[in-house]
């Protein structure tokens, strides 16, 4: 799939395609299950993990309720430490700011650490248009960059690719030898990236957390590439969404314990870097540190009291791994950079509900996401809320082949349900009508409808049979058994 713009309207087609791709199904099934199982094991080792989740949630609530205060404090402290703060209201503003910083540094190449907000603002495209080459240095991100795709998962961008896929890709794009040995594949990537680290004038990272009290940026990783990006080049640019603020350095312990375990089942990731300002005299590190603070729809989310909770998300990806729908359709089906249950909430907030109105419906509302969320975001409840918003704000769809629009159908249904006589009559008519539909019994007592002529039930019978109504409904049977 192309990696520009919001394509969430195509979720139905993409989901269908994904369901037919056995290779992709197995890649998602095995990876999500592995991360899900690792998480379960890791949280089992922490006494009071539940209280930790509560604490994480409380802290996030505190920040969101006083975001102006904490953001101001953070910015003041970044500047006090010698960093420079830039404010971006939109994706375009953020890209222009980054471009400006790179150009004034006289650089033409940029090494990038993994950043979801960087994906969100589509920075690589903006830089490319300005003649600046951005190279992803996270292995998974490098893989999706080379294949011209978006991350398939918040934490594991190349989850949809097998070793074999990566070997092919490296052979084609990096002209390396064919190998499916993960160590050798990593060595190939390392060789390519080392060269880039040595010559790039600017390094870019995201931020897992931004500490208001100290003006520090916290980044966690397993590969060591973020350390390179943030220390080797002369200039370090940080992209940080306004929701990444945490109040105090002491609160970091809560979030680090939550994030590693929820995301990958690790107690801590291999590297945790706390970066406070550029280099001091006599030290290593970048000469300049620029922090680009990005809104891009977050303030509007903050203003919606119900949806504000979405900003609590610490991007661990646990809800994706737990979600039976994500496991089936994968990340790309969601049509933008954020996928899974949290993506179905974030995308409508940041990209606009009008462009993502199918997403809130891409859930069976089973609640597995809420069960694993480290900050206990009530995802199914918010999906239900967004479904309500979709029906209030947009014209009701009329499914192809349907006699009426969905809203008219629901109104008719509601009218029937309000009158017991109409309900009984409806049941009677349905029994009559079902006689004209193709059924099968397979030797059982019950007749099952095999093909419905129009939606919504034609969608049901496209993949399974639908039970014919019982000849005698309960309300009739009750007359015999009421005593």
């Amino acid at each position, binding site marked *: 799939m192309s990696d520009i713009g919001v394509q969430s309207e195509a979720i*139905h087609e993409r*989901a*269908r395609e994904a*369901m037919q791709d056995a290779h992709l199904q197995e890649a998602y099934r095995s990876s999500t299950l592995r991360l899900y199982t690792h998480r379960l094991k890791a949280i089992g080792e922490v006494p009071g993990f539940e209280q930790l989740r509560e604490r994480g949630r409380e802290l996030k609530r505190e920040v969101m309720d006083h975001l102006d205060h904490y953001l101001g404090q953070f910015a003041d402290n970044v500047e006090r430490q010698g960093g420079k703060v830039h404010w971006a209201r939109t994706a375009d503003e953020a890209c222009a700011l980054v471009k400006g910083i790179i150009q004034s540094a006289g650089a033409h190449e940029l090494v990038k650490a993994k950043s979801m907000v960087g994906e969100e603002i589509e920075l690589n495209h903006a830089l490319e248009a300005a003649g600046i080459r951005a190279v992803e240095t996270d292995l998974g991100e490098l893989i999706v960059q080379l294949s011209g795709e978006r991350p398939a998962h918040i934490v594991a961008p190349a989850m949809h690719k097998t070793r074999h896929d990566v070997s092919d890709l490296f052979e084609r794009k990096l002209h390396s030898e064919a190998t499916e040995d993960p160590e050798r594949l990593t060595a190939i990537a390392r060789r390519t990236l080392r060269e880039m680290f040595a010559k790039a004038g600017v390094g870019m990272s995201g931020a897992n957390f931004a500490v208001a009290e100290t003006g520090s940026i916290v980044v966690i990783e397993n590969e060591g590439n973020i350390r390179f990006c943030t220390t080797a080049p002369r200039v370090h640019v940080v992209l940080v969404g306004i929701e990444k603020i945490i109040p105090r350095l002491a609160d970091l312990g809560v979030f680090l314990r939550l994030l590693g375990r929820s995301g990958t089942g690790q107690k801590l990731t291999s590297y945790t870097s706390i970066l406070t300002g550029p280099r001091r005299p006599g030290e290593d590190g970048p000469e300049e540190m620029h922090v680009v603070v990005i809104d891009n729809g977050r303030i509007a989310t903050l203003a919606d009291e119900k949806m504000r909770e979405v900003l609590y998300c610490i991007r661990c990806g646990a809800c994706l791994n737990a979600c*039976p*729908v994500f496991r*089936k*359709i994968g990340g790309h089906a969601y049509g933008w950079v954020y996928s899974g249950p949290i993506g179905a909430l974030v995308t409508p907030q940041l990209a606009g509900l009008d462009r993502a109105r199918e997403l*809130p*419906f891409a*859930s*069976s*509302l*089973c*609640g*597995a996401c*809420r069960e694993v969320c480290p900050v206990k975001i009530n995802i199914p409840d918010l999906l*239900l809320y967004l*479904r*309500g*918003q*979709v*029906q209030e704000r947009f014209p009701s769809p009329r499914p192809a082949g349907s006699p009426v629009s*969905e*809203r008219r159908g*629901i*109104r008719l*249904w*509601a009218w*029937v*349900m*309000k009158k*017991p006589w109409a*309900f009984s009559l409806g*049941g009677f008519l*349905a029994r009559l009508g079902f006689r004209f539909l193709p059924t*099968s019994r*397979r030797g*059982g007592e019950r007749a*099952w409808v095999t093909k419905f002529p129009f939606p*919504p*039930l034609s*969608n*049901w019978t*496209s*993949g*399974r*049979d*639908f*039970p014919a*109504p*019982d000849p*005698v*409904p*309960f*309300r*009739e049977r*009750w007359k015999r*058994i*009421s005593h």
Partner: protein
Amino acid sequence: MGNHSPKVALFITCIGDQFFPQVGECAVRILRRAGAEVSFNPAQTCCGQPAFNTGYREEARDVALRMLDLFDDADYVVAPSGSCTTMVRVFYPELFAGDPALLRKVERLRERFFEFSEFLVKIMKAEDLGASFPHRVAYHDSCHLYRELGIETEPRKLLRAVKGIELVELQDHRLCCGFGGTFAVKYPEVSVGMAQDKVRAAAEVGAEYLVANDAGCLMHVAGYIHRNGLPLKTLHLAELLEKHE
């Protein structure tokens, strides 16, 4: 309870009434056997969940409003469905938020509203209802029942008390079956794919029967089984508790 038999109003649910009336009959017999006096108000239809689930809150409110006055003379209302019980207990307060008078009615209904297995075990303190069923049975935790109402031990207690039963746990028994209300027709391929996983999990543990407490999940899974001519059979818990084999 003392000597007084609790008056229980049955909420059969719209799907139960039209598609699985035998589940209602079984539930009535079991509730009576457990010592309840059962009534059925024929003015009932649906709890409103299909509209709520799809985002049509006004229409959901319209339908749900009727529910608030239907069961005033009963001590308890019992539904053979975790999902419809969730609609009343969890979603009605949200649906009627901002209307204190209606919220008081909601509160009065909520505190008396129970899911079938929950009511038997928690309120009637009944576990062994005299059933015998010498088969290998797997229980599916339906999502609303388990995650919204927290009911997982009650159905298992009732099942373990059945004579001759061989109760087996599915690998990942809390994984959604893929029904999800209108999700089943909005994302049919995904929904069916999830049913396939559920049926496969049942086959892996060699279950003859898959039991659940929600007609929605059961008609979805059974529809998949029927389409593909598979040997697995499905039962509602109330039906199983009426087996005397």
